Each structure stands twice: as C-alpha cells, then as structure tokens.
C-alpha cells in the first residue's frame, strides 16, 4: 500500500438515482415443524423452481445469489439484479409447496445495504405482494361461494 499521497480532495457530489445494479432481500422460509430442513443448495433450488413455476424458463434463468443462509432459522439474504426484483419477489410469494409440504416465504426486509438486525421479526411488514395474495385468495373464495 506504499504510494504517494494524492493532494487533498476537492468537494464533489454524485447523486445516483435508482442506479443500484442489485437489490437485496432478507427472507425466511416457513415450514411445518418436524420435517427435514433444506440445505443451502436445496434452498437455492427451491428459489429457482419458484421462479420457473411463475415465470417459466426465462424466469428461472434470472441470476439470484444466496449471499447468506442460516439453516437453523431458515433465513437467507438474496441478491438479485434490479430488473428482476419484482419477478423474484412475486415468485417467492406465490410459492406454496416444498417437497409436497406447505411452505411460505416471508420477505422480512428489502434494502440496498442493510445491517443484520437481531430481531428481524420487528421489520416484518405486510408488503404489497402479501396484500395481493390476500386479494387473490378472497376472489377465489368468492368464486367458490358463487359456484
């Protein structure tokens, strides 16, 4: 690291509006108790299959990185390119089964850069997508009633 010290920096400002290449999601997988917990590779496979189910082969090709995965709590940090955020989020929300067991993804947090927070549950929100799911379920119920 030995190098000549450059002169003191002049003031400069850069404003980056929605320029981030990637977005990050902290998610938790909810499974009924007692079953086998997926390993990190199985977890990634589940995310890819969720994408394939909703968005087809093109969706499955979306580059998603599992930056961190904790098997104990089934929580993970995912990285996705910005243009694929909505696709990933919707695919995760609409996924209902893991190895023929009911499951659900909860998006705990979404951020551009964020620290690990111990009580991540504190940040649990009703996201737009969960609202969407409720609406879908409601309309399905309505249909059943009508039938």
């Amino acid at each position, binding site marked *: *690291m030995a190098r000549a*010290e*450059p*002169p*003191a*920096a*002049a*003031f*400069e*400002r*850069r*404003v*980056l*509006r*929605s*320029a*981030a*290449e*990637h*977005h*990050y999601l902290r998610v938790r997988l909810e499974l009924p108790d007692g079953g086998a917990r997926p390993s*990190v*590779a199985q977890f*990634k496979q589940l995310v890819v299959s969720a994408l394939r189910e909703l968005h087809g082969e093109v969706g499955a090709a979306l*580059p998603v*990185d*599992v*930056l*961190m995965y904790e098997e104990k709590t089934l929580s993970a*940090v995912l*990285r996705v390119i*910005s*243009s*694929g*955020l*909505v*696709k990933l989020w*919707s695919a995760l929300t609409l996924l209902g089964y893991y190895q023929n067991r009911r499951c659900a993804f909860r998006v705990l*947090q*979404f*951020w*551009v*850069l*964020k*620290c*690990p927070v111990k009580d991540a549950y*504190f*940040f649990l*929100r009703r*996201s*737009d997508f969960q609202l969407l799911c409720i609406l879908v379920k409601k309309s399905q119920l309505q249909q059943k009633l009508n039938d």
Partner: protein
Amino acid sequence: MAAPQLRRLGQAPRHLLVCEKGHARHARSRHAAHVRDHAYNCRVSFLIPECGILPEVLKSTVADVGEYYLVRSLPVHELVAQEFIDAFVKKGSCYALSYNTKIDQDNTAALLPNGKLILSVDKDTYEELGLQGRPSQYSGKKVMRYIITIDLTDAGFHPDSKKHNRVLWALKEKKPLEFDFLLAWYTNIGAGGSTLMSYFSKNQIQALKPKITFSTLRDLQCPVLQSNELQGKPDESCSTEELFEWLGAVLNQVSLDNTSSSFLSTYCCPQPNVMVEKAFLCTITGFIIPEKIIQLLEQLCCYFGEPKLAYWLTLTVHGFADSPVSWRESEHGFHKGGENLYNFVIFRNLDYWLQMAGTSRRMPDIYLQRS
C-alpha cells in the same frame, strides 16, 4: 393492457445514493453537519483494516457513547409541559422517539433537538386531535396519514398562549396519546442522565446502555480506493457503489470468494482488491445521539495522526427504520425497507467520502441540488 403490466415487472422501487467527497479539515467541510442532521441512529459500526487492537483513545470514546432511557407509557402531553421544556428542551439537545411503533401502521412521535415535536398520526387520530397538520407525503391520493409539527421553543408557545393551551387540551383531554419513548439528553455542562431519571421517576423509566461488540476479521479482501476518484478507475481503484456493496457483504458476514460459475452465489470482492490479514470491526447498537457520533468520527480522524498501515477506514450509521423523520425534518416513510443510513470513508490524508442512502423522497432537496 398486458404490455404496461409486463413492463412494470422489470421496474425496481426507486432509491437514492448520494456520494460526496471532501476534506475533513477543510474550513467549509459540512461532514459534521450531515451527522448532526440525522437525529435518530440505532446502529453505528466502524471497520479499520490492518488493525488488530483498538487504540485506547478510541476504546474510551466507544465506551463513552452514553446511556439512553426507555420510559414506558409516557403521555405525549408531558413532553409539551412547560417544566419539561424549560428543564430539558431549552437547556440542551433533547431526543425522544416513540419505541416499537411502526411508521406505516401506528401513530408515532419524535422530539428533535431543535425543539420540534413531530407527530405522525393516522386519519382518525388526526381528526380527533384537532391540531393543524399536513398530509403525509407517503399516503398517496387518499390521505390516510398526517404530520403535525409543534415547535416547543417558539416564542408564541408560552404557557398562557392560546396555542399552548389548545395543544395541551388536545393531547390531555381530547385524544390522550401514549407511547413508550426512547430518550436521550445532551448538554455541554455534562451528562444529564440523572436529571432525566429524577424528572420521570413517577413513570417507569429504565436506563439502558448501548450494546458494544468487537470482532477481528481475518484474511479479509478489501477493495482498493483512491480518495480523489469517486467513480473509480478500471484496474486502479473501486467506485463508491462497489465499496457500498462490499461493506454490506462484510457487515453481513457474506463470503467474498465465489467464482462466477458458483451455483449458490456469484458475489465476489470488487477488483482491484488487496488481502488484509486482519481488520477490526466494532458495532454499537442503541439509541445513539449525533453528538457522540461526531466525537467518534473525530477520534477516527485522529487515528491517522500516527503512521498506520491502513489506507482508509469506514464508519457506517443506520437510522431507525420507523422514525418519522430522517435527515433534518424531512419526512421518512417505510416503503419496503425503511432504510436511511450513511457511511463515511476516512482516508489516510483525511479526505472523506460520504454516502447517504434512502429513497428519493426522503432527503431534503438541499442535499440533491447543491453541487
């Protein structure tokens, strides 16, 4: 109809990253002002590469971050009472923030050090209260949330004034609001903790200490930075965005050495980088007031007073996701993540980079226009 829907699939929520560079010892440098403008901070962490043991001065600064207080079910009208204003608001910097309230669902309250009490309330509460406010920026076409700002240090806000009586009546009788509050008080004379304790002795008050953790990271890949190159140069130095992402990965203990063909993750440290044998990471969580962060920042600048191996160090500050304000008095909303944070990179020659992140409505215009 399908086309616009499909296009929206590719859109990401908007966000903003403001990057600045300057010199910490420049007479007109505003780095301390930026810290002061961000009142509510829940987490401060600093990372020093090539550092195994923290110098004593820094250690004592970290230990001196100070206590904060949690008052259970405190009626808001007690913050408007003249005794409280005279004893605390006018005599120093008083910080208060409602605790465990969610900015997009609940009523929230915050008292800024400049004496402004900010209430962010839903439509029903607003109508019951009968105080003047303005619609929230985040409520969309149908206004469901209102912001009420009361200036406690205003000359017209004395105990006999109509305004004072109206506010007191609204908060005491019309619609009594109660929150758990996080409190901190800072004066030049000395720590004001005991006074706060005795003032609120009737209420349930608890003194809390910030949680401090130290850790040493071994064999860390650090990006190469050049203080006068915010945008970075290919093969010479990394840009601010790359550093920002790397820092997030380090703070989350994400592995940095993946290959591009890896199934799980393709994230790797930005190029060019150097392997650092050890790096020191310190994290403080609690209700941390800006005055203490300025002291810490100053001590971190002094770290380079003696020759050191490190070329730069970083200081990251996270704001509360649910505070009703972020920078100055600009309104803060949760949206999808509620992040409001800033990060300093201090270089060996005391140049600094400052990165401020949030969604674009959250930062006062002054930060965006001045260039």
